C-alpha cells in the first residue's frame, strides 16, 4: 500500500514537472508552428534570474518570480526580433526555425554558463516541510508544483479560448492569410506569443529548479520530455498535454519502480512510438488535411 502511495505521489510530481515544462512549448508550437529548441535554455534563464533576484538583490519571492517572467518575456522578444521575424514566410520555415532556435539555445546556454558557472546552485525559492500519508512523505513543494502546473495550463487554455488576444492567436494558428485579411497584425501575434511563451518558460524554470537544482543545462532533459508529451498529445493541444503529462509521469514512475530507474525514459519512448504508429497525429491530435 505504501509503495502504491509512493508511486502515485512521485508520479504526480513528475507529471507536474512535465506539464509545467510543456505549457510554453505547446503554446508556441500550436500558435506559430515554431518548435522552440531554445525552450530548455529559457527554463534555465528563468530559474537563474529568480535566484539572482532573491540572493543578490534580496527581493521578496513574488517580485522575484515576476522579474524572472519579465526577463523571460524579454528573451522571447529577442528571439522574435533577431530570429523568427526574419524567417516568417520563407521556404522551409518549419524546419529552419528548429535549427535557428538550436543556435539561439547555444548562445543562451553559454551566457548562463559564463555568468553563473557550471556548478549547480540551490534555488532559494520554495516551501519547506511536507505531508505524511502513512509512511510516505510528500513535500509541500511537490504539491505546490502540481497545483501551479494545473493552474498555469488551465489559465493558458482559458485565455486562448476566451480572450480577444487568444482568439487572434488561434485564428493565426488556423489560417495565417485569412487572419491577416481580417485585420489582425500577425507579426504582432508572433511577438506576443513568443513573449508569453518566454514568461511561462521562466516560471516553469523556477518551479523545476525548486525540486532539482540550478544548472545551465537543467532545461534540456525537461525539454525533451516536454517534446515527447507534445508529440503524444498532438503538438499544440494544451488540454491534451496536461492529461498526457500526468499519465506519462505515472507510467514512467511505475516502470522505474518495477524495472529500475534507467528504463523509465526508454519505456516512455517506446510507449510514445507505439502510440504514434497507432495515431500518427497524436492521441488527442486531429489530422490536418490540405486542400490541393
Amino acid at each position, binding site marked *: 500500500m505504501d509503495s502504491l502511495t509512493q508511486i502515485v505521489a512521485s508520479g504526480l510530481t513528475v507529471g507536474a514537472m512535465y506539464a509545467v515544462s510543456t505549457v510554453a512549448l505547446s503554446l508556441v508550437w500550436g500558435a506559430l508552428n515554431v518548435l522552440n529548441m531554445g525552450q530548455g535554455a529559457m527554463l534555465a534563464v528563468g530559474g537563474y534570474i529568480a535566484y539572482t533576484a532573491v540572493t543578490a538583490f534580496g527581493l521578496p519571492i513574488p517580485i522575484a518570480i515576476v522579474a524572472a517572467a519579465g526577463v523571460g518575456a524579454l528573451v522571447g522578444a529577442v528571439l522574435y526580433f533577431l530570429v523568427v521575424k526574419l524567417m516568417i514566410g520563407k521556404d522551409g520555415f518549419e524546419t529552419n526555425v528548429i*535549427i535557428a532556435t538550436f*543556435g539561439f539555445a547555444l548562445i543562451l546556454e553559454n551566457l548562463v554558463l559564463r555568468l553563473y558557472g557550471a556548478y549547480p546552485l540551490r534555488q532559494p525559492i520554495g516551501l519547506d516541510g511536507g505531508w505524511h500519508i502513512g509512511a510516505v512523505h510528500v513535500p509541500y513543494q511537490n504539491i505546490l508544483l502540481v497545483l501551479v502546473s494545473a493552474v498555469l495550463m488551465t489559465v493558458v487554455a482559458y485565455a486562448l479560448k476566451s480572450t480577444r488576444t487568444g482568439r487572434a492567436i488561434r485564428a493565426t494558428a488556423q489560417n495565417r492569410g485569412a487572419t491577416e485579411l481580417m485585420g489582425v497584425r500577425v507579426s504582432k501575434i508572433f511577438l506576443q506569443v513568443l513573449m508569453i511563451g518566454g514568461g511561462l518558460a521562466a516560471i516553469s524554470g523556477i518551479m523545476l529548479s525548486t525540486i532539482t537544482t540550478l544548472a545551465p543545462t537543467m532545461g534540456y532533459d525537461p525539454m525533451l520530455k516536454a517534446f515527447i508529451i507534445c508529440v503524444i498529445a498532438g503538438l499544440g493541444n494544451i488540454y491534451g498535454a496536461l492529461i498526457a503529462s500526468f499519465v506519462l509521469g505515472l507510467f514512467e514512475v511505475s516502470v522505474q519502480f518495477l524495472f529500475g530507474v534507467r528504463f523509465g525514459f526508454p519505456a516512455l519512448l517506446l510507449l510514445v512510438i507505439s502510440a504514434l504508429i497507432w495515431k500518427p497525429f497524436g492521441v488527442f491530435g486531429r489530422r490536418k488535411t490540405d486542400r490541393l
Partner: protein
Amino acid sequence: MMKNDSAGRFRTDIVIGSVLIVAAIIIPFVFPTRYVIGQLTIFFLWATVVSQWNLVFGVAGIFSLAQMAIFAMGGYVAGMLSLYLGWPLWISMFFGGFASVLFSVLIGFACLRLRGAYVALLTLAIAQTMYLLIITDTACFMRTGVTCRNFTGGTRGLAQFGDFGFRELLPYKYMAFGNYFIGLVVLIFAVAFSIFVIRSPIGLAFRALRDNQTCAEVRGISKFKYQLLIFSSSAFFTGLAGAVYAGHFRVMGANTLYLNLLLFLLSMLIIGGVGRVWGPILGAAALMLVDEVLKEFVNWRLAGLGLILVVFIVLLPKGLAGYIEDIFQRGRKNKATVGQDE
C-alpha cells in the same frame, strides 16, 4: 535539356572530386605533422557523416536528429565485435555499418510516417535514450581479473578492442598516415554514393515529391518507400565512419552522442549548403577551421557556434555551396536559368 544539364553537373562533380582527391593525397606528405594529419582524419569522418546526413535531410527531406546515434551504433557494434568475439577491426567495421543500417530501418519504420517536426523530436529522443542507456550501464557483463566490465563500457567508454594495426605496420614517421587514408577512402565512397543518389532518378523522385507531393504520389512515387531507402542505405557509411572513429581513437564513448557534437555537425550541414553535393565537405572544412579559431576563445565556443548557426540559417539558408553555385550561374548569363533550385 534536363538530360544534358545533369550530365554536365555530373562531369563537374567528377572534376571537383578528382582535384580534391589528388590534394588529399599530397597534403600529408607536405605537412607531415601529427596534429594536421589527425585533424584531417577527423575532418574526413565528420565530412562522411555530414554527407550522409545531407542525403537524409537535404535530399530526402527527413529532418532526422538521430544521425549521431546511427554513427555511434556503428562504432559501438564494431568495437564490441572486436572486443568480445576477437574479430579484427577490419572486418567488424563493416558489420558496424550493417548494424547501423538495421538500426536506421527500425527508426525509419517508427518515425518516417510522421510529419517534419515530429520526426525531429522522436529521433532526438531516440538518440537521448541511447545515451542514457549507455551511461547508466553498470551491470557486470564480463569479469577481467578484479575489474568488472559492463557491456557498453558505460561512462568510461568501450576500449581495448584494438585498432587498424598501423602502429606495427608502418614506420613511426608515417604511423598516422594509415588512419588518414582509411578516413579518406571512406569519405570518397560516401561522396560517390551521395553524388549517385543526388544525380540519379532517386534524386529526381525526391525533387518531384518536394515540388508537388500529391502529383508525385499520384504518379506512383511512394514517399515512405523512397525515404526509408535513403535513410537506411546512407546509414551504412555513417556507421562505417563510426567504426573508423572507434579504431582511430581506440575508444568509443557516449560523448559521441552529446547534443553539442550533434549541433556542431548540423552547423557543418547548414553552413555548407543543404541538399548540395559539395556542401557537406565545404561546411565540414569551414567549421573545422572556425573551431580552430574558437579554441582561442574556449569560454565562448558554444555561443560562437550558435551565432554562426543562426546567422547562416536566417540570412544565408542556401549555405556556402549554394552561393558559390549562384555566382557561377550569374557568370554564365547566356544560359537561361530555369528555376533549378526549388
